[in-house]
């Protein structure tokens, strides 16, 4: 990414990782479902929104689907900009919006059986703070 544009002065990245514990239950595996077609469109829209807000020189979002295990990487967000402030902010924005707007669903495999992860108010709150009046 940095070789593509010598104006890049900062690259921020985030990697989301599967944990082995959630809501008090052991998680043996996690299955990620998505909506092929809408998911890609949603990610493009979120990236376009980030590019409209910050001076982003390059961005990459990769989200895995299918069966994952603890310590596997779920999601990668990379943002390149001229200075670190914009890269950090846009990276966090992309993750907050992805978590509340991109059609992915997690199902955890636990010793008690499978259970769908519930959406979290804290994720909505995190996305909400980026709203412009």
């Amino acid at each position: 990414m940095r070789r593509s544009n010598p104006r890049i002065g900062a690259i921020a990245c985030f990697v989301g990782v599967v944990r082995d514990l959630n809501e008090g239950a052991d998680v043996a595996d996690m299955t990620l479902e998505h909506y092929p077609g809408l998911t890609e469109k949603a990610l493009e829209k979120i990236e376009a929104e980030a590019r409209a807000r910050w001076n982003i020189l390059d961005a990459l979002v990769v989200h895995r689907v299918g069966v994952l295990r603890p310590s596997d990487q779920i999601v990668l967000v990379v943002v390149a900009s001229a200075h670190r402030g914009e890269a950090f902010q846009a990276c966090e924005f992309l993750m907050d919006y992805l978590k509340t707007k991109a059609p992915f669903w997690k199902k955890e495999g636990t010793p008690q059986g499978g259970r769908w992860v519930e959406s979290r108010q804290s994720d909505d709150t995190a996305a909400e703070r980026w709203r412009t009046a």
Partner: protein
Amino acid sequence: MEPNDSAVDERVSIAVEVLYFARLREVFGRDRERAQLPADVRNVADFMAWLRKRGAPWDKELAPGRPFLVAINEEMADPGMPIRSGDTVAIMPPVTGG
């Protein structure tokens, strides 16, 4: 097709493809279906009301105020969004990726 033909079709009934995802796919026991809707189903809200008439678990899961999402032809839709013959309507739980 002549413009008049589609107008006639829509008065009789509206044929849509319905997709279900994640927990709702499991609760409803299907990932897709073809639905033939009466002509008075004009928008997303009407369609949800029509599905609720099927009884449990549709009535509970799709009750007003429940946090589910609807997309039409791969665009997120609000309750007032019109539904037309040939549309693909997706019904999804709130997202939990990332």
